[in-house]
């Protein structure tokens, strides 16, 4: 393999070492990745099969058909080992034309440049040799630009990217990948950096960079991206395969295993320090005894309102969209709990239970209850998030709650005061858009999905938190509308965002998982799977007052969780639970679960899935370990996964179940037995339960006693009076 000039190489290595050791703080893990990330694609399997795409339904992504045709020419010639024709065909697709999406196998849809790169990288030995003969001179010529003494700033990465994309199998491909790995690492894209270095190990085994060196670099990147298991595996591998060998980093010889372990311990101590400063909640443990104190309770649905709602539900038994079992979404930040109850956003002090602010009086909804059971409004579309000093709510003006297909608005509030900062209805470019899916705050922007009032094209938008103006937008694809209830019109699926260390994932709840770069701007890959069934042409059957279907009564929502580099997800209206390894990416396993099931939690061993039961599914074997039927009757399916116990809030109290076998350790009845149960979460030193009528906070026993007494002192004067005041206030 050709090597970089020694000066250039040494300079880069020295710089890299200094960077890792001295410059890159742990916090860099959260630094947004720039465009470098877009080059690095995970390595989906190749050989697209149209058969696999058949009958999947659901979310549709635009695929570049003309590019696909050209690419198939290459594949055809390569299969015949007609290398010259094959490479001529691929020459016609230079890197600047590899911009569309192509289908790969296993349901993957990937950027063209990634798929083409992958297919070339996996050519048989004969093809690889032919490729080198065909392209080596051109690649070396191109790469020579980097080796100049004074390269144009930023040009080396650009050139390296072109070499990597088009000529990876040539003699300079490994150097290009190494350089890109360093660049990605510098910018905090640790996962991308690891992929570049892994690409060299996987496809350029004779590289002169050295396997040990690359493995050490990979290990550091894995450690920084929080993938402890893979890090440990590499350290173990180095220990066994390279005993006693030294590696030169930054001009110093170091013993790799010792070096990596010291980095790990530094990282752990830094994390624990960060954890203290962020006041991460203490892990819940043990049962809730009968005398667990009730810290406070805020009743947002007044008794009068409840009567009106109940009456409305009885009078509209024919329709019924589950409004009676709906539990509003909430978020917690900085000691505050913020709820979005049908467009009324309110903030509560978690310690004292004081109602800090609200966007409207609670009883404003009372006049809307009469129409709500047969309203065509998608009540699952309400959402709320908070970050910095901003609260973002996907909401409707309560007066327009029952309007036909009223677009949902994105409204920004000041966290401290509840003052409305901006409203998408008043932003001209967004006034006709309906916002859908819980927004994701990324730096000074917010990523959010929209669709047109009567359309189903899903657009991803990045808006400035300061004023709601649009930074950029990108069409993700077209959703298939879902008809949950036969008595309602079809509605758009509600997507879910998940931010990982170096990517943004969008679960469409429509048969697709989309991986974007850390800014959410570039698609890295799309996993396509079975979408929701089309209800067109189905016969409708009904009888009298049949009970609500579970999927409506439980307000089943999709969910996506990440643990150890694997994402687990289950879409709403789907009966499949997936585990996807993000590093490859590929589906590790999928298994059937109930359509109404919700993925509620994950720990080191189990996934916790809820229906009217709590189920623990083994993460490795995907087997159901245990299941317990619980008196779950409404929405807000959630659980607190503690050290040894999982907690579920039901209408018969808070169940404390043994994590290992699901045994019922205790039932704490609590103060909200008149409700349907709902969300449960540890917020600071409180265990907070949000039901369909109240928000209740308990002081759990795992909170330190001194903390308890302090909190109790703070709360003592307000606990009952504020609670009752709030309740009176809420009833208008």
């Amino acid at each position, binding site marked *: 393999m050709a090597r970089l000039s020694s000066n250039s190489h040494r300079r880069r290595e020295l710089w890299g070492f200094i960077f890792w050791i001295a410059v890159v703080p742990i916090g860099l893990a959260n630094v947004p990745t720039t465009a470098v990330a877009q080059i690095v694609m995970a390595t989906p399997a190749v050989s697209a099969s149209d058969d696999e795409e058949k009958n999947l339904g659901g979310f549709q992504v635009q695929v570049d058909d003309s590019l696909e045709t050209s690419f198939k020419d290459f594949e055809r010639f390569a299969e015949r080992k007609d290398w010259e024709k094959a490479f001529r065909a691929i020459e016609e697709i230079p890197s600047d034309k590899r911009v569309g999406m192509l289908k790969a196998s296993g349901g993957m849809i990937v950027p063209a440049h990634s798929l083409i790169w992958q297919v070339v990288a996996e050519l048989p030995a004969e093809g690889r040799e032919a490729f080198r003969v065909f392209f080596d001179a051109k690649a070396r010529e191109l790469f020579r630009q980097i080796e100049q003494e004074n390269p144009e700033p930023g040009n080396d990465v650009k050139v390296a990217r072109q070499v990597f994309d088009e000529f990876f199998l040539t003699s300079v491909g490994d150097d290009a990948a190494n350089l890109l790995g360093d660049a990605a690492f510098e910018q905090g894209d640790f996962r991308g950096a690891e992929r570049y270095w892994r690409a060299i190990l996987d496809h350029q085994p004779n590289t002169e960079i050295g396997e040990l060196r690359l493995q050490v670099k990979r290990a550091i990147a894995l450690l920084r991206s929080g993938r402890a298991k893979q890090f440990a595996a590499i350290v173990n591998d180095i220990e066994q395969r390279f005993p006693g060998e030294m590696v030169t980093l930054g001009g110093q010889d170091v013993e790799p295993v010792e070096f990596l372990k010291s980095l790990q311990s530094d990282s752990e101590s830094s994390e624990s320090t960060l954890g203290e400063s962020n006041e991460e909640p203490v892990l819940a443990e043990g049962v809730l005894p009968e005398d667990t104190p009730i810290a406070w309770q805020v009743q947002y649905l007044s008794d009068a309102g409840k009567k009106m709602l109940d009456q409305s539900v009885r009078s509209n038994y024919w329709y019924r969209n589950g409004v009676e079992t709906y539990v509003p979404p909430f978020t917690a930040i900085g000691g505050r709990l913020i709820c979005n109850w049908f467009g009324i956003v309110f903030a509560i002090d978690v310690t004292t239970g004081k109602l800090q602010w609200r966007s409207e009086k609670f009883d404003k909804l009372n006049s809307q209850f009469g129409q709500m059971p047969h309203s065509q409004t998608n009540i699952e579309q309400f959402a709320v998030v908070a970050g910095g000093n901003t609260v973002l709510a996907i909401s409707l003006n309560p007066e327009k709650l029952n309007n036909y297909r009223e677009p949902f608005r994105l409204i920004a509030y000041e966290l401290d005061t509840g003052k409305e900062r901006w409203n998408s209805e008043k932003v001209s470019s967004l006034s006709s858009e309906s916002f859908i899916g819980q927004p994701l705050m990324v730096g000074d922007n917010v990523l959010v999905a929209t669709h047109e009032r009567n359309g189903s094209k899903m657009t991803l938008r990045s808006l400035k938190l300061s004023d709601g103006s649009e930074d950029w937008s990108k069409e993700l694809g077209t959703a298939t509308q879902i008809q949950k209830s*036969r008595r309602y019109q079809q509605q758009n699926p509600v997507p879910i965002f998940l931010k990982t260390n170096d990517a943004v994932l969008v679960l469409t709840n429509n048969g697709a998982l989309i991986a974007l770069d850390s800014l959410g701007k570039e698609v890295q890959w799309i996993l396509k799977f079975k979408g929701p069934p089309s209800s067109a042409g*189905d*016969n409708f*059957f*009904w*009888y*009298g*007052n*049949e*009970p609500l*279907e579970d999927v409506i009564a439980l307000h089943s929502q999709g969910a996506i969780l990440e643990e150890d580099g694997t994402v687990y997800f289950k879409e709403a209206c789907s*009966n499949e639970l997936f585990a996807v390894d993000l590093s490859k990416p590929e589906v590790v396993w999928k*298994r*059937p*679960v*109930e359509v109404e099931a919700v993925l509620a939690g994950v720990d080191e061993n189990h996934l916790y899935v809820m229906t009217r*039961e709590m*189920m623990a599914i083994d993460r490795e074997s995907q*087997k*159901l*370990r*245990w*299941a*317990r*039927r*619980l*008196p779950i009757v409404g929405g807000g399916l959630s659980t607190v996964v503690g050290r040894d116990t999982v907690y579920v809030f039901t209408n*018969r109290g808070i169940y404390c179940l043994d994590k290992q076998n*699901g*045994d*019922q350790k205790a*039932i704490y009845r609590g103060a909200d037995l008149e409700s349907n149960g709902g969300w449960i979460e540890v917020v600071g030193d409180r265990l907070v339960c949000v039901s369909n009528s109240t928000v209740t906070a308990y002081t759990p026993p795992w909170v330190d006693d001194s903390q308890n007494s302090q909190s109790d002192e703070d709360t003592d004067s307000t606990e009952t009076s504020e609670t009752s005041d709030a309740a009176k206030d809420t009833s208008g």
Partner: protein
Amino acid sequence: MTLRHHLVHTVLFSAFVSTTCLTTTQAEERSGITVMGVGKIDAKPTIVELTGTINGEAELAGDAVTKFRGNRQTAIEAIEALEIPGLTIEGTGVSVNSAMTQQQMQAIMQGMPAQGDSAGKLAVSEPLKLTLVGVEDMDTEQLLETLVKIVDAGKDSGIVIGTMPTNMNFYYRSGNTRTPLAKFKLSNVNEVKARAYEQAIADARTQAERLAEISGVKLGPITGIREGNLPGKNNQQVVYYNPYMQQQDDDDQFTSTDLRDITVTISLQVDFSIVEE
């Protein structure tokens, strides 16, 4: 006594027998007195019985079995933990079924074929019978408290107490939104019945003696006894479909869904001979 008096007595006697006590047919001529004796004993229930259902339902058969086992174990442990004297819990047989979706059920109820995925959920279920004896020694408050404990424990542990949701449509359709959770029964039915038989025979003898006296004949020994109503009496019953009846057993005729005395009624048709004087 004149002939006229005899004639009047005979006519009255014939009318009385033909309209009230003694119904004869042309094919069934009797030479004696046949009467219907009724014995009624009111007895306090001695048993309370609750039915519950353990269910495990899932897309995968293995999951359904795991759920069923877990739910069963939880339910039994919860009930046993109550340590209520005289309370027993008994499984009445596991069944494995293909569970239908609500949409499929609706289709079938409309006489249409069920649509959708034929490989639906699998359901493993078992009805449980919870029996509490010694009820006669409890006062109403005690009994109520005990029942509430059982129902609460059942609900806490996920047993479907009372009617299964699949049968709920009957109640919705009939406008009955309250479903019975407990059945009150007699455990000593035979003993109570024996007393009722004695009472029925005594009642029959009283009636027959009265008739004999009126008729001026002497009552002889019993020549035949038949249980039930007299032949020819209109016994037609209209039976409405009630899913709850599927759980009935032989003793359910001495069962009440309310806590009150249960009446055991025995009707005997008794034939007495007339002794020649």
